[in-house]
């Protein structure tokens, strides 16, 4: 319910293929990340973001402090 008609969904999928080509164009060696079709390829970036990217950093960034001690010296 509420999902896009199949023709629109297909257009979303085609946009994913374009995105994969763009992301893969920066690959310089075999260790570089590669991108392609997976279980999220029929979701638009907006849909994917709304469903899966739902964490946020703390509002008060002051809470976080940079390195103050050498962790390797702990027991």
């Amino acid at each position, binding site marked *: 319910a509420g999902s896009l008609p199949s023709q629109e969904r297909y257009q979303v999928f085609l946009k994913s293929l374009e995105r994969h080509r763009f992301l893969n164009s920066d*690959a310089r060696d075999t260790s*570089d990340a590669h991108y392609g079709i997976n279980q999220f390829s029929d979701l638009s970036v907006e849909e994917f973001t709304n469903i899966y*990217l739902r964490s946020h950093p703390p509002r008060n960034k002051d809470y976080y402090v940079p390195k103050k001690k050498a962790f*390797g010296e702990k027991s």
Partner: protein
Amino acid sequence: LPLQFDWRDKNLVTGVKNQLDCGACWAFSIVGAIESANAISGNPLEDLSVQQVIDCSYLDRGCNGGSTDSALKWLNQTHTKLVRSSEYPFKARTGTCHYFPPTEHGVSINGYEAYDFSNYEEEMMKLLISVGPLAVIVDAVSWQDYLGGIIQHHCSSGHSNHAVLVVGFDKTGDTPYWIVKNSWGTSWGVDGYVHVKMGENVCGIADFVTFPVM
């Protein structure tokens, strides 16, 4: 420091989970950190209830989002014991918080710490080895299409939106990388994991680092 380290090699990381259509990556990340920290403390490695955190962490919004920081704050303030996943299974939707009596078996934390390691990834390596897997919040927009390899481009710091768990690193090759456990199932990425280049705060992986104290 070793060139390679992975908590999975010691059998101290539980299997990859699938959050389905529930936006509770923050809960999966924190529960994963607690599962490992509890096992590192000498207890059996067991799956703990993500659904309990989703339903009960009143500082967060269940499947509509949340923060690793506030989940740890809730666990620390309330001394809530996380029960086994089998006792409080994942339902992929926010529900009513179930109360368990204090006598119930469960895992609680004694505190937590949070750091910004954006300019100190070497220190983050030491911390990972010293305390266990680390919950982090990253920019994961480009992860929608990830299949494998080491993410080095198309991933920025300063736009954190997804919580995951760093379980190791590998510096033996030309490109050193963090080994990161995700919660999108084992069919995504490298058996559910993603590799992110070390040393340049790629994806903001060192910006928001938290871990439980057991």
